[in-house]
């Protein structure tokens, strides 16, 4: 235990193993820092910026920054929380997130963050971009309207040879996450369900399934996201 270091989050003394990413170190100390693109055990990429904290006056993503000895982290100040909320709002307006009609509603991490921040309405104008639903795979529906480009599926859904089922296509505002047609045709149920569960929103859906958990019994119906971390 010699590599234990001390650091502070919003003035609270914390301890963690040296080199741990701040998000994980905070969780070990019962402090929840929200994330969307980050997944435990997967190399972080700092894509969504929801986990932004301030260290030494600079804004940094806590999923990609390792904690160091004596570090002072600002995480739950009004300004940082407001910044996170605005990222969530931007994600809501930049896609087509029709929560009432979404299979993932109640289990969606983006929605759960909006609940956490009590987003009554996004401050930004809705874009209503024209996006397609790709349902050619026998197992999966890839709804581009809901994709937030977190890359979780690309990083975690792979075949035995390590090839990703999903990939980025195009760039800039035309960017989309697509399912490889050939591999998608051969996808088994287990992989398809894992892909659905790893998607933080309702962009990847296992076909012929949905709405099987009633309102009131879903993951975020009663408890806010992160409540399993808070001590």
């Amino acid at each position, binding site marked *: 235990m010699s590599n234990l270091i001390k650091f502070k989050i919003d003035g609270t003394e914390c301890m963690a193993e040296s080199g741990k990413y701040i998000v994980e170190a905070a969780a070990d100390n019962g402090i929840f820092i929200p994330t969307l693109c980050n997944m435990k055990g997967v190399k972080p990429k700092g894509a969504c910026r929801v986990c932004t904290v301030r260290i030494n006056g600079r804004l940094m993503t806590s999923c990609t920054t390792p904690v160091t000895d004596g570090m002072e982290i600002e995480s739950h100040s009004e300004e940082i929380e407001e910044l996170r909320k605005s990222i969530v709002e931007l994600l809501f307006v930049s896609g087509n997130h029709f929560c009432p009609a979404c299979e993932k509603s109640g289990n969606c991490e983006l929605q759960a963050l909006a609940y956490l921040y009590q987003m009554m309405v*996004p401050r930004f*104008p809705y874009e209503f971009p024209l996006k397609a639903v790709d349902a050619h795979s026998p197992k999966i529906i890839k709804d581009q309207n809901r994709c937030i480009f977190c890359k979780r599926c690309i990083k975690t859904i792979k075949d035995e040879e390590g090839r990703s089922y999903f990939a980025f296509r195009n760039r800039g505002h035309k960017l989309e996450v697509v399912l490889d047609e050939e591999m998608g045709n051969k996808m088994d149920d287990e992989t398809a369900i894992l892909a659905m569960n790893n998607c933080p929103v309702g962009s990847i859906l296992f076909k012929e399934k949905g709405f099987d958990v009633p309102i009131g019994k879903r993951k975020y119906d009663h408890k806010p996201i992160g409540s399993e971390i808070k001590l």
Partner: protein
Amino acid sequence: MSKPVIATTSLAGCFGCHMSLLDIDERILKLIELVEFNKSPIDDIKTFTKAVDIGLIEGGCCNSENVEVLKSFRKNCKILVSVGECAIMGGLPALRNGIPIEECLHEAYIGGPTVQLNTEGVMPNDDELPMLLDRVYPCHEIVKIDYFLPGCPPRADLIWEAVVALVTGDPLKLPYEVVKFD
């Protein structure tokens, strides 16, 4: 002192939010003690007969009539509240956003799989009918909206607490479970 006045309307909505308002159970008796209703489907008053304090708007704007009604609400109400997902972001009707109107009408009246009786391929085009807008607009993109109550429908508790808070001036209690988008 006279009671605060409430008006409600359903624009491009399904009346689900009004159902949710009725879902406050026995508190509806308290509501009647607390406020007076003016223009609303609940009492069937068709036009504003006095100045209104709180206007509750259900549904977004999908046609010219919705815009007209919404503007008359803004003119006659001191406070306007967007109630429900459709008023806030267009909701399910806004699924048509991005699809050309002609394509939508064709699907609904001519080419759709359930169209059977329209053998002559007539599309409704009467001067009496409100014009469809190019897309469905959230209410706050048409007029200024003061408050937003999300949900599909917003929980009865949320509507009740919000109306009581507006009428009494007490701070609004927002427990985690009442702010939901579905």
